């Protein structure tokens, strides 16, 4: 009798343990599938349709405030019908990892962004992205975008995403520091740039800002400008076999002679810190950084900025601009037509020209939405828009023009180049090897 009682006790404890484990799993599973429930709700239901949007335009991002207001505005306008829930993600690399994992596991978020065409191409193969072609060609949407950009985002004739933010990259000079160094004119050629760098270095000012961490973002932009100068508008046509890639690598290597001692291993925070605090004089980044320069830069920095297009090499290919789509917006495929309508309503809302103007003026970012250029109130942003439209040619930045493997290898290859492990030719070979 005693033994039976003991066995019964053991059995009850085990069952309780098992049940509590399953209950915990079940609970979280319920939470996780909550949006899923609304996904399958039919139209007749009064329940609010919720859309999840893992978003990087939060926190310290220059678009965070106005974009956040846009989402709140949408939720108010469609109160009781649709609701967009932002999942804040402040780390760009972590965001890309998260989206890649979600798409590959067949759980693409309702709305999300992508940084490169390579990712768009890859994700389109998953069959988990909503086909937006008809929607983007429909009345009311077709005329919203800058000419050609929606077509350029097609994969085999299908729009699985639309371009939203445009990266227009400018070279920025701190004129006050240049004056201090006795540099009278903004360099137009690389030869003039080296002279300016010597003058700045002589008075202990870091001439250019460089980095190798976080995919070497700003150094990658310098490389893109060097590619424009060495290879002209068609530099990407022959792939990495074009000799311009080696010539541009030599320019980039020389730039590291005129940078901070912490450039190897530096990330965007370090680079921005040098320029925002007037320790460095020459910098390049997308127009969106203007918003941060205004708020985080030392007093007067914004007013001392001079903007420039690309420099020339041997008198050739000067004045180019570097640009690329910075963010594509896509949606996960929906089984419920009502939810698909909600996604489309949100896309319509965030592509309205007046909202884009507000977003541009507040953040310094430029967009693929066609707006009246005169409505840009920020003088430097307006100048970038003007310079880029006057540029003799534009090329995409390197990261947007090569495969993901090459993008990821760039940082290590650049470090090898700067440390002298490889020559400029070796640098390009390392990139090619990553592509195989």
């Amino acid at each position, binding site marked *: 009798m005693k033994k039976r009682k003991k066995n019964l006790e053991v059995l009850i404890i085990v069952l309780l343990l098992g049940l509590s484990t399953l209950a915990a799993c079940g609970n979280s599973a319920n939470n996780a599938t909550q949006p899923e429930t609304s996904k399958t709700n039919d139209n007749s239901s009064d329940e609010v349709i919720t859309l999840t949007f893992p978003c990087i335009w939060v926190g310290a991002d220059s678009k965070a405030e106005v974009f956040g207001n846009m989402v709140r505005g949408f939720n108010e306008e469609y109160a009781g019908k649709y609701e967009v829930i932002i999942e804040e993600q402040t780390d760009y690399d972590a965001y890309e990892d998260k989206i890649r994992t979600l798409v590959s596991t067949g759980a693409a978020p309702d709305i999300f962004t992508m940084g490169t065409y390579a990712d768009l191409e890859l994700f389109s193969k998953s069959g988990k992205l909503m086909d937006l072609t008809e929607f983007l060609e429909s009345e009311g949407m077709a005329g919203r975008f800058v000419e050609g950009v929606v077509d350029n985002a097609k994969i085999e004739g299908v729009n699985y995403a639309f371009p939203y933010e445009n990266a227009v990259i400018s070279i920025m000079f701190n004129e006050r520091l240049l004056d201090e160094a006795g540099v009278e004119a903004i360099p137009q050629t690389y030869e003039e740039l080296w002279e300016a760098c010597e003058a700045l270095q002589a008075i202990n000012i870091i001439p250019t800002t460089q980095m190798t961490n976080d995919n070497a973002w700003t150094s990658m932009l310098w490389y893109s400008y060097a590619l424009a100068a060495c290879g002209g508008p068609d530099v990407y046509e022959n792939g990495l076999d074009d000799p311009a890639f080696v010539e541009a690598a030599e320019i980039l290597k020389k730039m590291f002679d005129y940078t901070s*001692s912490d450039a190897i291993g530096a990330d965007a925070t370090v680079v921005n810190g040098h320029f925002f605090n007037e320790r460095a004089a020459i910098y390049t980044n997308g127009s969106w950084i203007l918003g941060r320069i205004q708020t985080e830069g030392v007093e007067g920095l914004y007013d001392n900025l001079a903007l420039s297009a690309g420099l020339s090499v041997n008198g050739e290919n000067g004045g180019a601009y570097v640009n690329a789509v910075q963010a594509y917006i896509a949606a996960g495929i929906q089984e419920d037509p009502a939810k698909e309508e909600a996604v489309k309503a949100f896309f319509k809302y965030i592509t309205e020209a007046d909202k884009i103007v507000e977003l541009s003026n507040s953040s310094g970012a430029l967009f693929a939405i066609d707006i009246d250029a005169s409505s840009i109130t920020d003088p430097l942003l307006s100048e970038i828009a003007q310079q880029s439209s006057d540029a003799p040619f534009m090329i995409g930045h390197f990261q947007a023009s090569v495969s993901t493997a090459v993008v990821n290898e760039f940082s290590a290859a650049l470090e090898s180049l700067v440390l002298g492990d490889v020559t400029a030719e070796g640098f390009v070979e390392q990139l090619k090897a990553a592509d195989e």
Partner: protein
Amino acid sequence: MRVRKNDRIGIILFLLPALILFMVFFIVPIISVISMSCFNWNGISEAEFIGLSNYLKIFSDKVFWTSMRNNIIWALSACFIQVPLALLMALLLSKKPKGWKFFRTVYFLPQVISGIAIAMLWSAVYNSEFGLLNGFLKIIGLEQLTKNWLGNPDTAFICVLVYGLFYIGYYMVIMIAGITGIDDTYYEAARIDGANRIQMDIHITIPLIKYSMLTCVTLAAVFGLRTFEQVYLLTNGGPANRTSVLVLYLYKQMQNNNYGGANASSVMLILTGAVVIVLIRKLFSIKKD
């Protein structure tokens, strides 16, 4: 001692939940990793069977071997520097000197502080422009020694390693627990025989906490082999992959959408871990004999 039938049922029933969870969350994923290492898969498209090509590819990649070498150095330094340091601290603190509770907390603190916060702190220490280390060298007149510690191939790995070595608190606590369990009569007998503190530590304490030390060495080796956080946060494997480790290597394969290569790297990591654990157990059992 024979286990009675009823007890056996009880044991099985108690083990069952853990066994099921272990199978589902450990054994099945390992089998999946091994099988997927023979496929070319970008995570989205259909996987294509390619045999051992992923292994051949990673074996011909010098970054893989650099990562493997760094992992072995990391594991060895954890076993031969971290654990002895922790043992030293445990021996000192177990004697309950003045302020021992404070020091015990201080040494354990890195374990409970976010790794990101500590990494930011260390990256500020090592920064070449405004870092504490270079600042200190300048103050003491050794300006010629200042450098970009994390960007210099000669110093980067050592710097990351030093940061890792500060995590001794975990092992220290395990060994303090072992020391606390030693019967006082051993020490009383030794004192009567005229042994001093160092002799008591060498001849009584250390032999009696041998199995705590084995646990610490095993854990240190395993933690050393799966190091990721410190390297990722401080150098991201740079400069030029000089500080790369296996987990970072496989993470980068995943970033390149090369899931087959990442799985092959995982298999190598598992095998290395298994070999190291077997070697450690052999080492300790040889001493026992």
